[in-house]
């Protein structure tokens, strides 16, 4: 078993102490973590979005900050400010919550577009600029944002540029009957999150991130990735297809998934598995298609089911 697979197993088991029966979702979070990508968790209230983000943060031996997005949240509340210290008679920089390894941006769509935009530079370039001074963000850096897709009143939908910066958009979904029973019994006396310990150190995480980028991708698989993203651009129901950043994201995410599953090479199954979480949130569906009840996920699934997989010719 490889180092990455062992680390992944430890982390998945640890988070699994709190989040019951969502191993695939936890695995996807780990994929984003290995690629240094950001995650948008989108689901209805009470599913465990914030709990998942917290459990991930607790499982890593990294600094963790939480930003509760509200309409009156200002960019400086995120990035930090220069304040005048009367004792020293100097301006000092007070870093904002963005200066952490893991940043949970809860209910991100409740923040105003101005505040949301302050995250753009941080997420893409991993640096923050305050009063003409640019400071690098600590490594590793991961933004886990949550949003509620059903409550739209008093919210500001994320712009495309913002969405494109998230590597994956994932949902948790309702638990099954058995899982719900397990949740009740597990949370009966105390919250298991309180007793959760870190299982992955920062330097270990940085090392496996570096290793993950070295996974081999055959030329045929590379072409398969581009075929999927290109097909999204020419689909009749899609107004705006996946960007080259999306291709790159899918490529790196596939490498990470291959590493987690104990392989040192990427296979088309990895790409297929990640196509919807990595690409769906970046597509803009045409209005007429949306009115016909077609979502980005369903269109993308259809695209994936038509793009030929690089396998031997059977004729």
């Amino acid at each position, binding site marked *: 078993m490889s180092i990455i697979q062992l680390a992944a197993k430890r982390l998945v088991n640890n988070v699994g102490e709190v989040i019951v029966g969502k191993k695939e979702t936890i695995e996807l979070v780990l994929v984003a973590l290995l690629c240094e990508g950001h995650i948008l968790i989108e689901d209805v209230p009470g599913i465990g979005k914030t709990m998942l983000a917290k459990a991930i943060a607790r499982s890593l031996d990294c600094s963790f900050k939480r930003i509760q997005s509200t309409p009156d949240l200002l960019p400086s509340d995120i990035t930090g400010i220069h304040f005048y210290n009367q004792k020293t008679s100097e301006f000092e920089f007070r870093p904002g919550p963005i200066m952490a390894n893991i940043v949970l941006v809860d209910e991100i769509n409740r923040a105003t577009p101005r505040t949301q935009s302050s995250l753009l530079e941080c997420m893409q370039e991993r640096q923050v600029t305050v009063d003409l001074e640019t400071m690098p963000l600590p490594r590793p850096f991961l933004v886990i944002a949550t949003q509620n897709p059903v409550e739209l009143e008093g919210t500001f939908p994320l712009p495309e540029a913002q969405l494109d910066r998230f590597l994956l958009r994932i949902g948790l979904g309702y638990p099954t009957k058995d899982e719900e029973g397990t949740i009740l019994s597990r949370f009966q006396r105390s919250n298991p999150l309180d007793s959760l310990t870190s299982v992955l150190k920062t330097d270990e995480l940085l090392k496996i991130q570096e290793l993950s980028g070295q996974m081999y991708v055959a030329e045929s698989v590379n072409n398969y990735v581009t075929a999927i993203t290109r097909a999204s651009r020419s689909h009749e129901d899609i107004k705006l297809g996946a960007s080259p950043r999306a291709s790159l994201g899918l490529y790196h995410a596939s490498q990470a998934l291959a590493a987690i599953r104990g392989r040192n090479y990427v*296979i088309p199954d990895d790409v297929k598995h990640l196509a919807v979480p990595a690409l769906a949130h970046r597509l803009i569906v045409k209005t007429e298609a949306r009115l016909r009840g077609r979502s980005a996920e369903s269109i993308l699934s259809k695209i994936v089911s038509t793009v030929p997989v690089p396998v031997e010719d059977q004729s």
Partner: protein
Amino acid sequence: MKLDWKRGILYLAVMGMEACWLYVLIALLNNKAAGDHLSIAGILALYPASLFFNRLLGRLRWPRACLLGVSWLGWVIGMLLIVKVQLYADIPLSESAWLLSIPQSIVHVIYSLKPEFLILLSTGIIWWLGQRLASRDVSFPMMLRKFQFGLIMLVLIFFAGSRINAVPDNQVPAALIFFLFALFGISVAHAFENTRFSGHNRWPWPGLLFISISLILLMGFLITLMVTPELLQLLWTPFKWAWGLICGLILKVIQFLAGLFPQSEPGKLPPVLSMPPINPEQGKPLAIPKWLRSSLLFTIGVFCIGMALLALWRITSDIFYWLRHKLADMADAEIEPMPGAFKTDFFRLLKYLFFRLLKLRFFFRLRNKEGAVSPEVVSIRKIYRQLLHWAAEHGCPRHISQTPYEYCRTLESLLPDATIDLNFITQQYVMARYGVLLPTGDTLNNLSRSWHRIKQTRLKRASAEQSSGKEES
């Protein structure tokens, strides 16, 4: 005693040659009929048995019909023994099921080639060849004829194998052994009959034999080094281009001539007639039944192949007859001795070939530097291709968007008995196709075995059902 020893060598050479092409032929059919399950060595062992048995019979002073009857009785016993040992080793001898499988295989030969029929056919041919050899003395012309026939058979089998994508594993060693036996047998037969190409008799025949075999093997080795698929492709490309050009020109001329004729004015179309309703129950009165069509196709195929074989045989016989006449005419010719000339020419030729070879290798190495795939990966991909083809033929083709593992799950649901083998083949294919590690020799052997087991799944299941049905009854 010396004579018997010499005759033994000649018999051995003839048997060796015939065994080689028979081996390749049976291996080809074995691959198709029994998934390489049959032991070819076991079947070929009948050849010496037939020779000795028929030679022993030949010493008896019985009527010819009686001798023939006894001889073919020997074949029946040998054939049944092979069927029992190779296919039905687990079934008791007293049960008649394995005996009934032979006539069943003959009845079903139009639809599929069964291993029982393959044994029946191959042992029949082998026994007949042994019987024929036992009744004759081996001579130089006979050795030549055997060589001609064997060579044509080998070429035809290789051609057929490449067409049906079932090339036997040991075809190259078998061909090399065939040539060795042929060279050995022809040289020995020629030396014994004391007929030489020149009037000089300075070199003893073992020396000539050794030199000629060495030279031919060396030439064969050089040719195999030089003639690569890339070279053949390179030679073929101009012909292909020229053919395309000629066809294009002909087409243009036809189009020009057609353009000279005035275009007819489109007339008024006749009213559309309604189609009479089709009654599926009624059927087609003039339709040829499927069984008759299969039989006719089989007969026509056999006839065409037979005619082609006959033509080839006739042409090669004429060529060799002409060569023999030419050589016979040269028996009294005097050859001017030129000491050292042969050696000089020979070394010059070798030097020329060597440098040409170096140039060619350098050229193709440059061309194939990128995109070269190791032979191990090629074999795995070939096996997977065969699996895809096989599954598609059995009604389960892979959808273009299915990954190997997804397709494996589909196949597993249809072939639950072969789950382990399907998984193994898929896993190895995925590693070879998308990964970087090369498979080991053991893996390739296991892969080959897995593939053969998958091919036999249906056969095994059918036989298992048959035997369980018998137990119940």
